[in-house]
Structures are given as structure tokens and as C-alpha cells.
């Protein structure tokens, strides 16, 4: 086991949505390599509270990489340096004694900062509300095995459905595009037979809402894919574009 580390943190502090923010410097002392990144911040915060200072506000909940709540940019990379990992699952053994670490919130216009590292990501909820579902009311379902689905389609749908809605893809994109997020849901539902009846309408409505929220377009840099903690593939964006073109060709936009 390597021993404890001392680190310098440069952290974005912002009182609320209306205020301007700035980077401030903190020392994190005696950091164990077995701590998670957020546990390291917990320790810094305990110290700040003791001193009567405002602790660093950041979002987290499950702390096991599945709820999608945690969201911070570590040294310029959403969720930090380890691929396929949320920041709550990033452990300090990936840093060295004496490191300086910059910590910032998601930076994207549709995600306004509420305080320090906390942003408002409700735009993603509104995109799902626009059409990210299959319209089946409770009790209307046919028997589960009535419709066989190929393992391949089901597995691929699951690859897309693994999206945790954290918004790292948006934070990494120079255009603040939400295409990976949208394509994950469009892909998940579009790969399944149950998703077919609403396929055209869904893609049209979700893309329209995405545009309305102020997210940018995709210019194929694949930054989203490289930071996605669930490794959702950018090939779903290609699929999304095809579905969108079909929907437009079928006149979905005029309905």
C-alpha cells in the first residue's frame, strides 16, 4: 500500500446562479490512496466546516457509479482521468503526492451552475419528457414472452440503456451537444420491437427539444464517447442521425 498524499486543489467556487465564480485553492492533507475522489472532498469539507467556512458544494448520491448524480470536471476532463468511471468511483490511488488538481463544474449553457460544482441538468429530463418512452399504460401489457427479441438486439439495446444521464458527454463537447445522451435513449428504444410504433415521432420530438434547450450540434470529435462513464458508443449518434433523416423524410416534422 502506498502511503498518504498531500495535494493542492483548485476548486470553482460560486455562491449561486446569479453570482460570478472563481477558482480558489485548498490543501488536501493526508489523503489515503484508498479514498474515493469524493471522500477526499468530504475530508476537505469537514475541515472547512470546522473552520467555520462554507464547504465545497458538490452533487453525489449512490456513490457506486449508477445514479448519475456526481458531476465534476477533474483536470479538464469530466469525471476525471480514468476511462469508463464516474468521479465517485475514481480513487485517489490514481494521483501522486504533491499533485495539483483542478476541479470545476460541468460547463455548458443548458446546465447553469447552482452553486460551486452543482449544476441544473433538468434540460435532460425535459428531453426524455418530449418522447423518450414507450406509450404503454399500466396493465395494458401483453405477456412478456409473447414477442421473442433476438439476444443481439436486446444486448445492443442494453448497451445504450446503460446511460446514467450524468451529462458528462455534454460537458466534454465543445458544442455542448447532447447527441450522445439523446442517441442512447433513441437507440435503446429503437432497437426493440416495442419501440417501433413511436420511432419516428420520438426522434423528431427529442431532437427538437434538445435544440430548444440550447444544446449544440455534433461535429464528430468523439469527446463524448471518451468521457462516458458507461462507455456508450458514439455509433449510436450515427444511428440517431439515420433515424432522424428517416423521420424527416416521412414528414414527421409537419405533423
Amino acid at each position, binding site marked *: 500500500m502506498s502511503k498518504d498524499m498531500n495535494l493542492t486543489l483548485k476548486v470553482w467556487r460560486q455562491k449561486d446562479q446569479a453570482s460570478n465564480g472563481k477558482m480558489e485553492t485548498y490543501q488536501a492533507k493526508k489523503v*489515503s490512496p*484508498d*479514498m*474515493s475522489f469524493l*471522500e*477526499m472532498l*468530504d*475530508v476537505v469539507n*469537514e475541515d*472547512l*466546516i*470546522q473552520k*467555520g467556512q*462554507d*464547504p465545497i*458544494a458538490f452533487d453525489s*448520491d449512490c*456513490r*457506486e*457509479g*449508477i*445514479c*448519475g*448524480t456526481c458531476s465534476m470536471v477533474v483536470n479538464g476532463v469530466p469525471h476525471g482521468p480514468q476511462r469508463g468511471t464516474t468521479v465517485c*468511483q475514481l*480513487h485517489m*490511488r490514481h494521483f501522486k503526492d504533491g499533485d495539483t488538481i483542478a476541479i470545476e463544474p460541468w460547463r455548458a449553457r443548458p446546465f447553469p451552475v*447552482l*452553486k460551486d460544482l*452543482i449544476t441544473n441538468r*433538468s434540460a*435532460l*429530463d425535459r428531453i426524455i*419528457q418530449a*418522447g*423518450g*418512452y*414507450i406509450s*404503454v*399504460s*399500466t*396493465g395494458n*401489457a*401483453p405477456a412478456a*414472452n409473447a414477442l*421473442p*427479441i433476438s*439476444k443481439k438486439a*436486446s*444486448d445492443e*439495446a*442494453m448497451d445504450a*440503456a*446503460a446511460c*446514467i*444521464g450524468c451529462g458528462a458527454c455534454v460537458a466534454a463537447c465543445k458544442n455542448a451537444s447532447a447527441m450522445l445522451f439523446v442517441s442512447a435513449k433513441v437507440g*435503446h*428504444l429503437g432497437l*426493440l420491437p*416495442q419501440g417501433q410504433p413511436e420511432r419516428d415521432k420520438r426522434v423528431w420530438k427529442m431532437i427538437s427539444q434538445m435544440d430548444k434547450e440550447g444544446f449544440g450540434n455534433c461535429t464528430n470529435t468523439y469527446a463524448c464517447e471518451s468521457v462516458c462513464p458507461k462507455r456508450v458508443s458514439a455509433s449510436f449518434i450515427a444511428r440517431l442521425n439515420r433515424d432522424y433523416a428517416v423521420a424527416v423524410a416521412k414528414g414527421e416534422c409537419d405533423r
Partner: protein
Amino acid sequence: MKLDAKIPSGPLETKWSHYKEHCKLVNPANKRKFSVIVVGTGLAGASAAASLGELGYNVTCFCYQDSARRAHSIAAQGGINAAKNYPSDGDSVYRLFYDTIKGGDFRAREANVYRLAEVSNCIIDQCVAQGVPFAREYGGLLTNRSFGGAQVSRTFYARGQTGQQLLLGAYQALSRQVAAGKVKIFSRTEMLDLVVVKGEAKGIVVRDMVTGKISSYAADAVVLATGGYGNTFFLSTNARGCNCMAAWRSYKRGAGFANPCYTQIHPTCIPVSGDHQSKLTLMSESLRNDGRVWVPKNKGDKRPPAQIPEEDRDYYLETRYPSFGNLAPRDVTSRAAKLVCDAGRGVGPTGLGVYLDFSEAIGRLGRKAIEERYGNLFEMYERITGEDAYEAPMRIFPAVHYTMGGLWVDYNLMSTIPGLFVLGEANFSDHGANRLGASALMQGLSDGYFVLPYTIANYFGSSKKFVPSTDSEEFKEAEKTASDRIKKLLSINGSRTPTSFHRELGKLLWDNCGMARSEESLKTALKKIAVIRDEFWKNLKVVGAENELNQTLELANRISDYMEFAELLCKDALERRESCGGHFRVEYQTEDNEAKRDDENFAHVAVWEYTGEGKEPVRNVEPLKYEVVTMSQRSYK
């Protein structure tokens, strides 16, 4: 306190259908005149809110997370049970019912559990129709795996992310109702109190966690789906934000609290690594399908696992419980781990761990098959521990995971306060003294999709309709109580952080009211809780103000409830002078260290009634009558 479970008459198999055929209805045009508040958007809350919206009710939904999709149901890994009997291995509604009753150590209500088993199949149908990508065979049909406490394969799963996929299904159904204008969601909003008007639950007081504003909402009924109280122990597999405020404050408004001592310690979690630990991470029970649990036979054997030969290993679950082996139920498995660790045979730096070994399965099935089944779990293990479980066995140890106790509800899922419904983990009804794996998801969705929509109509149809104004006296009083408490927390200005108190309380509970409890340990705990609570209110330090996003304040407010609730938990554990399921009193055990029930004196639900600040709560009793099942000493040998 009057406890009428309102169980329908007639044979067990027809109770629910008889209920549905005879319950009161609200006609379609009238449904829009009724409003419902739903607190919590996990499986129970989201499925309830979506279903009620579809029916035409006006629903207002609240969650503390920044999005409804993040409720902690999302973290459930292994699966969801249903009595489909797709593998033709002899499963049936009755068998699922019986396994659940037995798994709960004969401390659950027969009628509720039978209904749960009955609707389990509809849940799978509903979820598949929503697009939940359950695992499938090459032929395109759904596949199953086994979970603890059952000898059939009845667990449906979506890789190691079943909870996520089921919750996203419910969240999407909910989102559809938001778009339809039938549901309004308030995220980052925490319930601080329940408002009771003329004896009925008619609203809630909430705090906007961004602005700090306290306000009230009124409705025809209130539904709590706010999860369990596992975080009272500080370290648990719960999410950081999970708390018992909604349930506890409803208790203080008159809702009976049932069986708080029934807490589930899950056997397979990643062991604690140091004092900085903020939570514990579960490794799904499904791993025990292929992983073998063992410790060295000899005390103090510090050799690396690979160097310990077969003859020096003790596969204690397989030898102790030959018919269930590594898939013994959770309470039994956790206690067995404690026994071997207490005997000095635990592994890892702290000695508080046992091995979960996949080498035999990897040899038999190949690494690829194991990767396919559990890849994400192995990856999660690697992230946290820095170790590769394909090469060396995992180290695991029990941790607080789920709470079977909760607010008391009748067959309608209504608490002792008319108009207050409680669903999912927040209620007490279906799992008795121990929950079987993959049954929590089943219960949450059963309550929300298939039970509440009927029973709430029955309530609306049989009571006089009224919605009070939020300007009424009762609302103002509740708002003031909530706001005074917050002001008090901010005004103490002592020297200890909220977390330091929480950690101290949690450790006290784990040591004295955890996997093993005794009269002595519980009395010690009760004494010390009072001391910690006293210091909490004198020496707490909360920085920041009330009218802003203030995470320290949120935490302090939740911890202030644990300080009170912990006492009830220990009192209940003290009064239940028997061992059953997750409640193990060392004084009451069989010769081979299994839980020994006392059916003569304790075959009942203990329901606690609040009697006022600083006063002793009253313990009421709902007798459990078994009409179909014969109570027996539970055996997995």
C-alpha cells in the same frame, strides 16, 4: 391505536381478485377532481405516480435528487423475482409466496405476501412492454437466474443493472405523464413534515433545496415512497441522500411505525477500508450463483488465498447448508460470516472479511462467461479496491442494506392515518423479518403499478372529499415547526460537524444493534444514544444560512431525526425477546447458532405509537395469523 389490517375474507388465493371486484371506484370523469401527493420517485413512487396520472388523477411528485431518475432503486443490481416458471423448474405463485413467508421467518402478513406473488408476473409483462432490456436466450425468450432462499430460478435481470433499467422504465412512464400534464415533478425538494387535517393526511411541508424556501402542498391524499432507514447506521449500501425524515416525521404526526428492529445486513459488500469511508458498496447476491464463499480453516492463516490449498479452506456455507449452499438467505449468510470472523478466521487487513471465489466457475465456464454475467460487478470491485477478482478472490463482508420495518400499513397500504399511503421499502408489510434477494424491486413495483391504483380509489370512494387550504392553521403550524427546527440547528454554533455525530451514532448502532444484539448491548446503546443526542443539540456546528443551497444543513436536519429514530430501533430490538430473520438476539439461538423464534409470544407485528416529545412511545401489537402456512423452524440445511 386501532390496528385493523382490513384483510379481505375468503380463501387466500381469491382475496385480491375479490377485493378488486368489490372495491369502490372513482368514475373516469371524477378522477381529475382528485389530487395526490407522491413523495419519492424510486420504483414504488415513480410507478405509483405514473399509474395514477394515466388513470386521470392530478399528481404532484417530490424528490430530493436533482432528477426523478436518480432515486436509489437505481442501484439495485441483481434482479427481480416473478413466478413465471419459464424455466419449468416447478415455480408457482404459491411457491414464491411460501418462499417469501419462510424467508421472512414467518413474520410477514400472509394476505399481502400472496398478493405480491400474484402480481409479480404482471410486473414482468409491464416492464418488457416499456422496453426494459431483460437478459434473453439466443431464441429470443427471457432468461432467469437463481437468488438466495429459493430452489428455483425465478429472477429476471438486466446485466448487473436491473434496478436501473426498471427505474428508467418507471421514470419514462412518469415522464410521459409529465408531458401529458397529469404529473408535476418537484426535484431537489425535501419533505419536512406531514400535515394532518381533521384526522386525515392532507398535505406536506417541503423545503426547496436550492433556495431554502419552505412551503406547503395540499391534496386529497399523500403517498410516501421514501425508502428505508438504513442510513441511520451511517455506513450502509444506501445512497448518501437516503434518509428517514418523511417516515419519522409522519410517525410523529400519528402514523404507527412497525418493526423498526428488522434491518437487513447484506452478506456480500466490499469491506471498509478506512475512517474516511462514506458508504459501503454492495456486490450483488447473484454472484453467489458462481462464487464460492470460504475462509482459511486455521485461525491466523495469513497466506495469500492462492497459496492456501483446498484442504486448508473452509467452504462454510456449503458444509453448513448443503441444500442451499452458497445461496442461503441473506440473514443466515451474514451471521455465518460473522461467526467465522469472530473465531479469528476472517481475511484481509482488518480480519473482517471472507473470500468470494470464482476460480472454480472460471475453470468450469471460462472467463468469458463470467465476464458476461458479472462484468460490471467485477469492474466495480476493481475500481474500489484496485484488485482483479478474476485473478484473486473478492473479499466481502456484511453491511447494512435494507430495512424490512417501516410505517405500518393495512391491506390497502394505508397507514394508521387515513389518507396516508406508504409504499415500497418505506412500509413494513411484505418481507417479515428478512427480505429475500430480488424481492425489493418486485414489491416496489407491485405496490406502485398494481396495488395502490385500486386501493386509493377505494379510499376516495369511501371517504368524504375535502382539500384544505394551505393557509389553514394546521399547515401554518407544520411550517413553523419545520422552520423552527432548521433555525435551531443553525443557531447552536458548537464545534462538531454533523457527520462526526452521524458516524458516532452509526458505530454505536452497528456495534450494539447490528448483526447480533443482546439485552445488555441494547441497554448500553439506549443509554449512549441519549448522551450523543444531547451533545448534538448543544455542540453541533452548521455553517451557512437557511435561505440557500446548504448541504450541511440538509444533513444536520436528517441526522437530527436519526438521533431520535435510533432510540426506537433499539427499543423495538430490546422488546422483541426472540431471534427472527435479521433480528438476532444472542440470548435466543438454537444449539447450532441459528435464530430461535418464540411464536407463542412474538408472532406479531410490533407497532409503535408516538405519544409526544420526551414521552415513552406505546408498543401496540397486530397478531399474525397463519391460515395457510404452517410455521416451522426455518432450515436451509
